[in-house]
């Protein structure tokens, strides 16, 4: 099997800027305070994901999950090390980003599809499917400004989930909207997985990870702490002993 994602000793550091204006910086210098700090959001991480694998990336808030995802999607470049991918990387990231509120839902679909990397022919081919999926009825031809938040989310989701990707990445709750829409999203995700698409999925929800993934990576303060089976990964994170047990990202339950 070929590697679809190769991460080799990738490190990404961020500068924390405490002060920005010249006055603040001068004052901070005088008082001997730090004006900025550097830290590694992703620290020497190596991993590979093979074709057709479905990997869940877990970790506490601020452990570097989103940064690693951004390195893989190509939004950011690693400061050192390499991140290689094969084919088109797309999926549920920033759904609805770039919507123009004054423009109709349909025109926004075209624009959003293009932003996600779809060609004109591809969009034309999938348009009906996407509009069906969003299921907004007549609202599809009114400006997005008049949409409810749920409708806007559905529109964004409908495009993102229908992009043909070689590597499908997701960085948010897999289901939005009402129960029927959630169900539809779930079915679609299952379909994507069964098609053999490589999936890279960031989640806090053990239920969703159990259902969707066959491998778990756990990040801890930017370092890769665990790489292995799903159950072990969840145990490693102590996400299994939850007495609250609410799995609201909802792939696992809610069937």
């Amino acid at each position, binding site marked *: 099997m*070929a*590697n679809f994602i*190769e991460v080799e000793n990738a490190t990404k550091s*961020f*500068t924390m800027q405490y002060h*920005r204006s010249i006055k603040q910086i001068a004052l901070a210098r005088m008082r001997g305070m730090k004006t900025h700090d550097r830290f590694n959001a992703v620290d020497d991480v190596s991993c590979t994901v093979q*074709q057709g694998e479905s990997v869940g990336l877990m970790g506490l808030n601020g452990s570097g999950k989103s940064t690693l995802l*951004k*390195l*893989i*999607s*190509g*939004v*950011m*470049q690693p400061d050192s090390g*390499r*991140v*290689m*991918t*094969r*084919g*088109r*990387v797309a999926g549920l*990231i*920033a759904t609805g*980003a*770039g919507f*123009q*509120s*004054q*423009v109709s839902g349909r*025109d*926004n679909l*075209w*624009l959003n599809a*293009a*932003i*996600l990397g779809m*060609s*004109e022919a591809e969009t034309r081919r999938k348009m009906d499917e996407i509009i069906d999926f969003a299921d907004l009825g007549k609202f599809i031809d009114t*400006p997005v400004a008049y949409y409810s938040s749920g409708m806007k989310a559905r529109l964004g989701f409908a495009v993102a989930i229908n992009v*043909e*990707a*070689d590597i499908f990445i997701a960085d948010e709750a897999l289901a939005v909207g009402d129960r029927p829409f959630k169900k539809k999203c779930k079915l679609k995700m299952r*379909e*994507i997985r069964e*098609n*053999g*698409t490589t999936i890279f999925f960031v989640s806090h929800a053990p239920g969703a990870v159990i259902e969707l993934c066959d491998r778990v990576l756990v990040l801890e303060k930017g370092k890769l702490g665990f790489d292995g089976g799903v159950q072990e990964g969840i145990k490693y994170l102590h996400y299994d002993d939850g007495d609250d047990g609410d799995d609201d990202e909802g792939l696992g339950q809610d069937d």
Partner: protein
Amino acid sequence: MMAASTTMEGTTPELPPLVQASHNNGLLEVFRRRYLLRLLVRSTVQARYQGTFLGWFWSYLQPAVRFCMYYFVFQVLIGRGGPDVYPFAIHLVCGMVIVHFFTETFNGGTRSLVSNRGLIVKLPMPRELFPVANMLVCLWQTTPMLVITIFVSVLLGWTPDPLGLLAALMAILLVGVLGLALALMFSVANVFFRDFSKVTQTLTQFTTFSVPMIYPYSMVADRFSKVPEVAHLYMLNPVAEAVLLMQRCFWLPLTNDPAVSRVEGFPPDLWSRGVIMLVLSFVALGLAQVWFSKLERRVPERL
């Protein structure tokens, strides 16, 4: 369903190549994704007059009103337009088209990365896309004003000559390329320090007065005839050159005596200057791209 699905069943799997996740070919990549560029420009233009009763009519009304204001103040009130600038309206509007295109390309372009933050920090795309799209939107917005210019010129008896049209084309190209180069440089700098959009605003305020628009070029040559260095310095401004090229197209053929105006109203080396500045603005664009690519690495985290 998936893009590589054909390779899965195939006997000789032809997988897409393993490449760096973050690859950027700058403006070339923008050209490669011109379909996205087109949609981006179109929806921006669409959004501009969405929800207005008059719609696209505004795109004519606004420049027309602006023109009337200038014309009233400088021709009627101050009595600026003497015989040496006749017809003053055309002299003026040639400048306005160029100045407006330039300042909007520069100003809007400088802000374009910050104002598209939501996309840039989340989705991989060539970031040069935004200054370029802004430039094209500005070009689109310039057309109503050009239409007005041509309409009024024809009313006054203007007939296009090939050399004149070439001059107008050069003017627009010069301002577009230069404006884009500046927008690229300043937009990425603006991510690190928002001061740069203020710098741009301040700089562009000078533009109106640093070009022969509300006063003729002959005045500059005349006032500084004792110190030709100043006139020389004045003509180093590419926007002034572009305005003169525009006037070569529309204003010159309409003057009382084009043969005289050609000598008095324009520098002797109008064309060679134009060509050199055009070449230099392309060089500036190349340098801007190098600078942009260098700083762009840290853009998503600093936005």
